[in-house]
C-alpha cells in the first residue's frame, strides 16, 4: 500500500507527477492552482526535474512543445483564463502528437470571472477550444485521491497515444484536503524514437511539425488523427455508476458535482425516490454506449444532468439518450456549488 497523506488536491497532483517521473514542469501562477508550482518548487532540490515559471501561459505551453518534443515527461497546470491562452498551443501539440499532461483547475467564467470552482470549461475541454478537428482524453477527477491517480494515468495515456491528455478539475478539488494514498514512484523509461534529441548517423532526422501545406497531406494527417481518436474512444472510456441497477431517475454528473449528486442519490432514496448516478470519468471519450444502454432501460424515467455551468455536458448526454427519455438539467454558476438538497428539489420538480 502506498504512502498515505492528508493533502490538497493541487499538492497531490504535484506529488503524483513527481512519482510518475516528471521531467519538466512549465507553468504560470493562477488561482486556484498555484499550489502545484509552489509544491514542485519546494520539492525541486530533491529531484532533477526542470521547473520553469514561464513568463505567461502562452510561453508555458510552447515550452511544453519543445520539452515534450525533446522526449520529456512533462506537464503544465493552469486555470480557465490561462487555459484559454494556451489554445493555439494545444492545437499544435495534438497535431504534432506530443505527449504531455495538462491540468485545468477550472474557475468561474467567462472573462476574469471568479476564482471559485466551476465546470464552465467542459465544452472547451471536450469539443476543442483551439482550431481544427481534434480531441484529447479528458479525465475528470472528483477527489484528491483521483487528482493523484489521474495524474499518473494521464502520463501513461499521453505516452500510449502520443497525445496530450487533459485533467479537468476545479478549484474546490484543487483546494480541498483529503486522505490520499500516493502511488509508488514508478521509474520512467521513455521510448520515444520520434523525439528530437539529435540525429545519429543511422537514422533519418526527426521532424516535429504540424504544417501540412498541401491539402492532401493535411487530409491524411487528419485521417490519421481521427483514427487515433477512434482508438481512444474504443479503449479509454471510463465511468462510474452508483445505485443505477434499479434507478428510475439517473443523475449525470462529473467531477465535484458527482460527489454532491451521490449524496443526493442517498438522500433521495431515503425518501423513496429511486435515484442513480452516472458519472463519466473520461469526459472525452464520452461514455456514449453506456448512456445509451441506460436510456434504453424500461424503468428509467428521465435523466438529469447536474453541472456547475449552463448545461454543457447535457448536450453529450442528450446525444446519447437521443430522445429515448427526457433529459433535464440543473446547474449553478460562477463558483456556486449546488447542494444535495437543491439537486433533489430540482429532481422533484420533474416528478
Amino acid at each position: 500500500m502506498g504512502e498515505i497523506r492528508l493533502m490538497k488536491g493541487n499538492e497531490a497532483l504535484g506529488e503524483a507527477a513527481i512519482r510518475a517521473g516528471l521531467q519538466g514542469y512549465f507553468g504560470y501562477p493562477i488561482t486556484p492552482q498555484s499550489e502545484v508550482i509552489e509544491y514542485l518548487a519546494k520539492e525541486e532540490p530533491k529531484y532533477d526535474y526542470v521547473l520553469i515559471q514561464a513568463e505567461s501561459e502562452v510561453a508555458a505551453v510552447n515550452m511544453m512543445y519543445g520539452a515534450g518534443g525533446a522526449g520529456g515527461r512533462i506537464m503544465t497546470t493552469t486555470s480557465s483564463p490561462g487555459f484559454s491562452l494556451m489554445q493555439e498551443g494545444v492545437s499544435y501539440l495534438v497535431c504534432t502528437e506530443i505527449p504531455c499532461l495538462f491540468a485545468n483547475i477550472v474557475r468561474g467564467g467567462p472573462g476574469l470571472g471568479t476564482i471559485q470552482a466551476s465546470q464552465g470549461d467542459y465544452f472547451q475541454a471536450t469539443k476543442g477550444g483551439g482550431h481544427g478537428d481534434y480531441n484529447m482524453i479528458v479525465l475528470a477527477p472528483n477527489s484528491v485521491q483521483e487528482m493523484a491517480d489521474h495524474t499518473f494515468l494521464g502520463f501513461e495515456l499521453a505516452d500510449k497515444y502520443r497525445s496530450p491528455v487533459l485533467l479537468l478539475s476545479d478549484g474546490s478539488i484543487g483546494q480541498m484536503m483529503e486522505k490520499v494514498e500516493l502511488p509508488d514512484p514508478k521509474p520512467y523509461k521513455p521510448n520515444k524514437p520520434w523525439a528530437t534529441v539529435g540525429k545519429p548517423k543511422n537514422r533519418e532526422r526527426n521532424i516535429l511539425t504540424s504544417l501540412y501545406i498541401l491539402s492532401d497531406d493535411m487530409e491524411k494527417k487528419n485521417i490519421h488523427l481521427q483514427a487515433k481518436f477512434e482508438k481512444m474512444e474504443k479503449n479509454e472510456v471510463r465511468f462510474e455508476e452508483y445505485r443505477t441497477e434499479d434507478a428510475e431517475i439517473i443523475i449525470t454528473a462529473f467531477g465535484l458535482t458527482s460527489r454532491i449528486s451521490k449524496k443526493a442519490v442517498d438522500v433521495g432514496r431515503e425518501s423513496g425516490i429511486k435515484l442513480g448516478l452516472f458519472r463519466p470519468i473520461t469526459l472525452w471519450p464520452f461514455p456514449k454506449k453506456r448512456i445509451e444502454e441506460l436510456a434504453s432501460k424500461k424503468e428509467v424515467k428521465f435523466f438529469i444532468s447536474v453541472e456547475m455551468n449552463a448545461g454543457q455536458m447535457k448536450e453529450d448526454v442528450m446525444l446519447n439518450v437521443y430522445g429515448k427519455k427526457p433529459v433535464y438539467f440543473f446547474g449553478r454558476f460562477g463558483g456556486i456549488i449546488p447542494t444535495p438538497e437543491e439537486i433533489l428539489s430540482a429532481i422533484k420538480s420533474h416528478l
Partner: protein
Amino acid sequence: MLQEMIFAGFGGQGVLSMGTILAYAAMKEGKEVSWMPSYGPEMRGGTANCIVNISDQPISSPVVNEYDVGVVLNQPSLKKFESRVKKGGILIWESTNIKDAPKRTDIQLYALPAVELATNKLKNVKVMNMIVLGALLKLKQIVKKESVLTALKAALPERHHHLLPLNEKAINLGMGLIKSP
C-alpha cells in the same frame, strides 16, 4: 457516523489550521476526512473558513450547507453560519470577539472566551484556536486527544516544536471549559 463541521473566523485566527489538525487526527485514526477551505483574495483581511467532514464511510459531498457543529470566532462568521447549524447541533462561539450572542434556541450554544483565556492565562493569543479545539473534543468525541497531539506535531515545522507543550495546555484548558460532554 458522519460529522459535518464548519470553522470560521478572521484570517489569522487559525481557523484553517484548527480544521486541518482535526482532519489530520481523524485520518490518523483511520477515518475518512475532507477539508474544504474558502480561498481567494476576498479573504484578504476578511473572513476565512473551512468545512471539515469526518466519517467512517467514504465522504460523498465535501461541500455541505448545514453543519452538525459550527465553530465561529468572529461576528461576521456568526452572522453567516448561525442559521446553518442543524437543529440539535452544536455552535461554539468565541465570546471575547463576538459581542452579539447567537439567538437560536434549537441548538446547543457554547460561549468560550478563548481570546481572553489565551492572552491572560497562556500569554499567547495564537493558541486561542487550540482552546476552542479542546472544548470541541470534549463536547464531541470525534477523535482522541492523542491523535490531535500527533497531528500538531506533524503540522508544526520542527523549529516550532517547542510550542507543542503550550498547545497541549491550551487543549486541556479548552476541555476543562466543558462540564459534561
